[in-house]
């Protein structure tokens, strides 16, 4: 029995060593840096001043809290809207074979597209010098392309939200199509024969049935969009700035002391995402216990 256990531990050791060294080692070293421990520049003292500076100092507090607000807004709005678009898209086309094939193809094409490419696409299409602005100007809807509403590089993060919707709706769509196909139409047909109208079938049948998968996918998308750097860097403005961009700028700062702030900001982003994931698991476990 003991020999068997030792065998299991020994066979698990190599992969666990790699995981612990690369993943937890990196996190631990980053955490140490966020506490001010930087031997390379002669800083050995451990304290929370980087966290304090980022969140409460006169210099950074406003940047941090508006950035956090923008982060939450962009992540919630883009996750919610991408899920809604994907849900209605999937419901609209799931019964039509031809549209389903075409849409599946288009969405599948969108999935491997890098976020950076999508962000550039958003600039080409939605900026004031973009395709839509020129088109609207050409057909006389607006006087000149400059009159087109500011959708890219705006302070509300609309361009960033658009890019995430464009990209993540495909992810939601693929998940929803597979869930809807596995569910079939029997539940809806049953509800219909029990007197449920179209809205009631959506509200009381489809939504509760797809919600567990939709919720899981939303957590993944939210966590990603909350911590991602490239799209906000390309489509965002200098103020307010989303937290990952702000963290990266701390790292680019020629003053190496600013690295602690950058790392503190990264740890804060990670903690927020982790709290969210823990909350999600707590919710699902509570539901399993309740059932």
């Amino acid at each position, binding site marked *: 029995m003991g020999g068997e256990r030792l065998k299991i531990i020994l066979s698990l050791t190599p992969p666990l060593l790699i995981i612990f060294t690369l993943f937890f080692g990196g996190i631990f070293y980053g955490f140490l840096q966020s506490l001010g421990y930087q031997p390379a520049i002669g800083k050995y003292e451990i304290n929370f001043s980087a966290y304090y500076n980022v969140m409460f100092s006169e210099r950074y507090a406003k940047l941090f809290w508006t950035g956090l607000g923008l982060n939450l807004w962009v992540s919630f709005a883009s996750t919610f809207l991408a899920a809604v678009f994907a849900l209605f898209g999937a419901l609209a086309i799931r019964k039509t074979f031809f549209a389903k094939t075409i849409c599946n193809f288009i969405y599948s094409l969108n999935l491997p597209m890098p976020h950076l490419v999508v962000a550039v696409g958003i600039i080409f299409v939605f900026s004031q010098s973009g395709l839509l602005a020129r088109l609207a100007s050409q057909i006389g809807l607006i006087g000149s392309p400059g009159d087109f509403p500011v959708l890219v590089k705006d302070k509300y993060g609309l361009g960033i939200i658009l890019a995430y919707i464009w990209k993540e709706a495909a992810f939601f769509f693929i998940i929803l199509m597979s869930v809807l196909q596995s569910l079939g139409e*029997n*539940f809806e*047909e*049953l*509800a*219909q*024969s*029990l*007197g*449920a*109208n179209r809205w*009631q079938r959506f509200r*009381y*049948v489809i939504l*509760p*049935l797809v919600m567990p998968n939709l919720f899981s996918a939303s957590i993944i998308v939210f966590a990603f969009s909350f911590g991602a750097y490239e799209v906000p860097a390309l489509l965002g403005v200098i103020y307010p700035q989303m937290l990952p961009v702000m963290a990266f700028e701390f790292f680019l700062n020629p003053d190496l002391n600013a690295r602690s702030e950058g790392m503190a900001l990264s740890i804060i982003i990670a903690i927020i995402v982790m709290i969210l994931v823990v909350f999600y698991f707590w919710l699902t476990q509570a539901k399993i216990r309740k*059932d």
Partner: protein
Amino acid sequence: MSKLNIKNLIKSFPSMDRPAVNNVNLDIESGELVAFLGPSGCGKTTILKMITGLFQPDSGDIILDEQSLLKIPTEKRGVVMVFQNYLLFPYMNVNENVGFALKMKGVDKNIIDQKVKEMLELVKLPDIGLRKPKQLSGGQQQRVALARALISNPRILLLDEPLSNLDAHLRDEMRDLIVTIQQKLKVTTIFVTHDQEEAVLLADKIALIFDGELQNFTSPKNYYEKPKNIKAAKFFGGVNFINAKKHNDNLSTNIGTVHYKGENYTDLNEDNIITIRPENIKLSKNNDFNDNSFKGLIKSVIFSGTHTRYKIIVNDLELECSLQSVGLQDIKTDDTIYVHLPSDKIWAMNE
């Protein structure tokens, strides 16, 4: 209590080379319990779905209490279907499942609670309201599905293979429950099955369907005694078929002239087919019978407990006879025997 008339119903699917439902006509009286019987893929569930409105027929009409249902959406027809796999909503408890139809109608919550209680008592499950579907056995799920269908007082209740997912003893229990509830509520009920025994035990009338076509619609007893054609007779265990011709108010066959008392003689074609159930044939070593008695040879004897089955050759024709084993004459293979086909038990049909 509602009366249902199905008129010239036709439905085709692109994937099929014949109509799934081909010119079906049926008149179902108020409060009747009717079985749609036939092999898998014969179109019975398709008819059910057209009655609910989930499928639209290509042509024909479905009339409920003198009103065509075709323009009425499913949710307003008052036709409720219980699916084969019950389909209880997994995220709702039993009370919520049963009360679903009333909630959709916007009925007051207190009234829903009261009706749910009544329905669960009706299906003999009064204490499981707070359980989730996955905490229920197959039989309990079936009863909850039935309660959920009945709560809104449907005009027509449709049951798709209601007993097929249950094991033998639960099936007997559920069969009794369906009959009891149906008789109590007098709701016009149609159920789909491929099991001939289930149809006979439950239904007032059986609609036998093959390849989308209605073969016969009559009482279970008639399927045994007066089948409409060979297909119907065979589906209900008929094995004896004799080619016949009309002749002087009787029927002429290659085993001899058969005296016939059936009331359908005038409707018979010149060429027709006689059938008789194995249990209605009588055997005797001496020729004890006055008419319809033919000499034959025992080909095989198979003892099966309460009954013994004989295969008899009569003038190159093979007949099968089943007699109660108790008090049987000593009849063995290769014995010469007289076979009696009682004239009130034989039935002739056009084919």
